[in-house]
């Protein structure tokens, strides 16, 4: 990108520099750089060396050279190209089939010298417009690039942060493994009495329940029950436990797996370090369920408390895995060479059209929702960077969206251009179920430093 820009500006400067100079005579359609090969009154050798012809056969409207080099200024050769100087704008090559075809291709009108087409020289105007838009673009690029530096800086810090967190988590895993054994013992010792206590309690509960049922219509009993229920705040009720099969110590299965416990234990120091309150949820009061089990008696409660740590660690298990995985995932993402795209992660950007609201959540998904009711359609999940080799980070590809009738799964290509702001600027569906989104972000802004240098460097010439 910077290379193309550089080239473009070079030639622009050159054109402006030579605009006032006398035009050097050379065969029609020959660029300055090849003028030396076309020496008047000397036999001309085709540029591929295939043959040599008298000079009067250069541009004589008959193709003699296989490479088309003898007819730079006519349409005679199928593979020829014509050079327009385009003073005031930038020079260009056009296929020689566009010479005298009645269509103005060169802004300096030189391609239509014998077709009767009336062309206006628009080079100066085009040059002016291009300079203007280049200037605007340069400003945007400049500011955008500054923003990008900031983004890179922030991304770097955040990345280090996350990496540190993960390393810490993974490091503490080892040290904690010893404690697992200890806890297992705790758990096992807790389980047996708990089991007994539970059974005991259940039995009495069954009796109690019978009583409650008999007297359930009595307001008093209901009030007493509610009071009991209130007292149970902050404790895990058996009912709550039973409703969560994965927390029930009796359904040993996967929960007693050592690995789960290890992960679970790892969570504890993390939580305490970040001062996150324990995630044990207070059981919801379910007033509608008059028959919810009252808490255990004190003895039972203390037994359950013994199992509490164990239970808590189980509750936190999946969450820990989730955090670890997300950290790993986020660190593993390709956020660009300097992680400049990291700020887009977990953000979403919307564009509203006449019919739909389009939503781009970078590195996640693209979706479309009808403005006036209707369900959301998945237009693709994050796939990969899909720009051309030299500019990989200019295009994002989202695929495996919702399937189309008789067609492919929906997919979206997001084209990124440099801008100060991060916005979706347009969407379209060029082909059925293949969407195209244009998205501006400072993260793709290229270093603009060369601009002034080039301009100044060449005006001196």
């Amino acid at each position, binding site marked *: 990108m910077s290379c193309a820009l550089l080239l473009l500006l070079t030639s622009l400067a050159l054109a402006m520099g030579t605009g006032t100079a006398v035009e050097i005579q050379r065969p029609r359609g020959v660029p300055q750089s090849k003028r030396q090969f076309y020496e008047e009154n000397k036999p001309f050798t085709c540029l591929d060396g295939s043959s040599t012809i008298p000079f009067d056969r250069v541009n004589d409207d*008959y193709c003699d050279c296989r490479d088309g080099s003898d007819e730079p200024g006519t349409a005679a050769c*199928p593979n020829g190209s014509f050079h327009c100087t385009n003073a005031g704008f930038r020079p260009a090559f056009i296929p020689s089939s566009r010479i005298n*075809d009645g269509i103005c291709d060169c802004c300096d009108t030189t391609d239509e010298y014998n077709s009767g087409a009336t062309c206006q020289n628009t080079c100066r105007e085009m040059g002016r417009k291009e300079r203007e838009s280049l200037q605007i673009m340069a400003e945007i690029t400049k500011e955008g690039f500054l923003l990008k530096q900031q983004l890179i800086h922030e991304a770097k810090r955040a990345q280090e942060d996350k990496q540190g967190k993960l390393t810490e988590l993974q490091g503490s895993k080892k040290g904690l493994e010893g404690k697992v054994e200890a806890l297992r013992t705790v758990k096992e010792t807790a389980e047996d009495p708990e089991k007994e206590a539970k059974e005991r309690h259940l039995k009495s509960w069954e009796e109690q329940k019978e009583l409650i049922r008999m007297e359930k219509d009595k307001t008093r009993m209901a009030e007493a029950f509610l009071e009991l229920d209130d007292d149970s705040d902050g404790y895990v009720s058996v009912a709550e436990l039973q409703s969560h099969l994965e927390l029930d110590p009796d359904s040993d299965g996967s929960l007693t797996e050592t690995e789960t416990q290890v992960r679970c234990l790892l969570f504890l120091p993390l939580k305490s370090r970040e001062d996150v309150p324990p995630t044990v949820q207070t059981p919801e009061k379910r007033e509608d369920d008059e028959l919810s089990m009252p808490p255990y008696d004190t003895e039972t409660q203390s037994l359950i408390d013994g199992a509490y740590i164990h239970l808590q660690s189980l509750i936190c298990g999946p969450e820990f895995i989730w955090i670890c995985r997300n950290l790993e995932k986020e660190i593993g993402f390709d956020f660009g060479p300097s992680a400049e795209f990291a700020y887009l992660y977990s953000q979403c950007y919307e564009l509203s059209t006449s019919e739909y609201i389009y939503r781009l959540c970078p590195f996640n998904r693209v979706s479309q929702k009808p403005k006036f009711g209707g369900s959301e359609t998945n237009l693709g999940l994050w796939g990969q960077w899909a720009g051309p080799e030299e500019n990989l980070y200019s295009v994002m590809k989202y695929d495996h969206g919702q399937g189309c009738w008789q067609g*492919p799964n929906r997919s979206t290509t997001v084209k990124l251009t440099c801008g100060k702001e991060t916005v979706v600027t347009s969407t379209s569906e*060029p*082909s059925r179920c293949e969407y195209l989104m244009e998205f501006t972000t400072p993260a793709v802004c290229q270093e603009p430093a060369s601009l002034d240098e080039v301009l100044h460097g060449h005006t001196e010439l």
Partner: protein
Amino acid sequence: MTRVKINELKPLKPRFEVPDVLINDPPTEPLSLLSRDENGVVLSLGADSQRLIVSAKPFRLDIMEGREVLLSLNSRGLLAFEHLRILYLDWLLSLLGPSSISLDFSLPGVENVYGIPEHADSLKLKATDGGDPYRLFNLDVFQYEVFNPMALYGAIPVMLSHSAQRTMGIFWLNAAETWVDISSNTAGKTVFGQMLDYVQGSSETPQTDVRWISESGIIDVFIMLGPTPTDVFSQYASLTGTQAFPPLSALAYHQCRWNYNDQEDVAAVDQGFDDHDIPYDFIWLDIEHTDGKRYFTWDPHKFPQPKDMLQGLLDKRRKMVTIVDPHIKVDSSYKIHNEIRSKGFYVKSKDGGDYEGWCWPGNSGYPDFTNPEMRAWWASMFAYDQYEGSMENMYTWNDMNEPSVFNGPEVTMHKDALHGNWENRDLHNLYGLYVQRATAEGLIERSGGVERPFVLARAFFAGSQRYGAVWTGDNAAEWEHLKISIPMCLSLSLVGVSFCGADVGGFFKSPSTELLVRWYQTGAYQPFFRAHAHLDTPRREPWLFGPENTALIREAVRQRYALLPYWYQLFYHAHHSGQPVMRPLWVEYPQDTATFSMDDQFLLGRDLLVHPVTEEGARGVTAYLPGKGEVWFDVHTFQKHNGAQNLYIPVTISSIPVFQRGGSIIPRKARVRRSSSCMEHDPYTLFVALSPKRFAQGELYIDDGHTFNFDKQKQFIHRRFSFANNALSSRNLAPGSQFTTFSWVEKIVILGASKPSKATLKTHDGKESQLEFEFDASMSVLTLRKPGVNAGLDWTVVLQ
């Protein structure tokens, strides 16, 4: 030609006789009575000792030439004529009974019959014993099957019979649903059986029997006696007219898709062609360009400035086609609908109200195109001030003109719908022709009668060739569909419709890259060359498949453009004399039995033989080069091959096997530009392919490319190129015509030549000059450098 017409003397009500198909009342000749007895008469048919024997009981007609029976009518006694009867009568309603007709034809000595399009079947028609007959009933068929006698979008009830001795034609002029049953006494016979017949010498003469059945109307049949294919084409052309002469650009490449989404999309695709240096002339807009499928309108959001768009195309000397279908949205805020309704121009249902059916716009009415007043009004809707946003570089496509009625029986109109006094059953197959006719007349009128129209239609009938182009409908991106495009267009070519093509790439489904490339290569050598794709398919503009495939497609399209002078000349001939552009080999080699059932190669005119690669993963093809003692030149390598041989040609993905007949001269324009209009003044290169006797002949036709001035004011150039006695000359074939061209002759390439000592050019003013030349001894190719003579003038080049 013999016409046999059978009708009821006193029908309860008149029976339908097909109007507007014959271009005039065929002149009749009195038949002279040769002899008679109590059961019949023998009449002289004039030429060639041809006689007609009429026998009364049982009724039978035999057409004889000398002692040979050429054709017999009703020899199997299958003549049926259900005369009109009152089937049911009550105080108001009388229902007429069935009214079908049938007749059989026996063709002694005939083993091959062709024609009766449109079917996705082999060129040589199959015997239908034990299966369905070929059906002719214009239908909008969803995802049609190949090698099937089922009815498709169009119907031309014309059959050609061919044997090594004679070519004949049967034109069954009936527009009702028609079935054609074919049986043959040789079909299905084993090779052993045939050998046995041969050895025993007791073989019965091969014979094909054909039975035609139509649901209503009368028996009105023309027997075209040939005897050559050319004669049959002329005879048929004298009845139904010839191919409309299209604007030159319509013979170039067309880029279509359902749909180009909006003006920006059109501009981007247009630019894409320039960016990838691929020529094209027309970009097409399908139904989505309209405002809610209201034809003659534009979607105000997607196409807010149609004239700007058209001007943008005009600036690049390109054109557009928009679709105008014959179903009209029933919507009281739609001008077209209101006018048709208020004028009473809609087809009526049997109870007298406007017939309505479901189509793209939802509930739709169907204008009665059989009504000349309706057609005149419809034509007037194409005036620039009526069709808002239209310009002179915008042309028209009539799709769905069977007509398609989504909720009708077999997706078409109810047979009891009324066109004036006639039921749809009587004229069903004629509806599509009238739609295309009214549209073509509209395009002519909008230009004050100056410009030639270009209208593409899906449904057609005998005579449709007079109004424009047709295509083979909604095919699929499958190799079988690519292959079938050849016999489908050949079948149409044989019965007058030269301007035929298939959707390049296949309409339904998505082609593999290889299939797409092969389809471009094939389509480049078929008359109507348009890529098209279904709405639900991924985009497939030529540059979307990587640079190599872009280059392959570019090359195929360029070959088409370079050959446009030849295409144009062939279409001029098709228009002028009814000779088909695309021809089965047997048309030019009628006695070569090897050519009688070929589906994989064809001729363009007489001089180019095309055997496109239509097999997936092909490494070679075997082309049959006809003509004992003739030679053919590979147009790409100039390699010479002998005729009357099966030639194995190794192929790569870039190969398009095409051969030029030794003895022919073909003009090309080597400077391929971005549209055909851009090439108007470009010079010609003549490819002279010498016969073994060192002789060659060819033609060149030039006019302004788009007006009727060639016809009305004789503004054209028509020249004959002849190579004989080592001299190549150009002389005027149309002394009465007047036209000047800027084009000149830039190069002459003589294939199969020997090296001359010098080449002298003599121009029309008597001046002589020497031409430089190059000689390639390995291929015997002589290239004359820059004769520089104007293409419209006399000149001679003498080789010494």
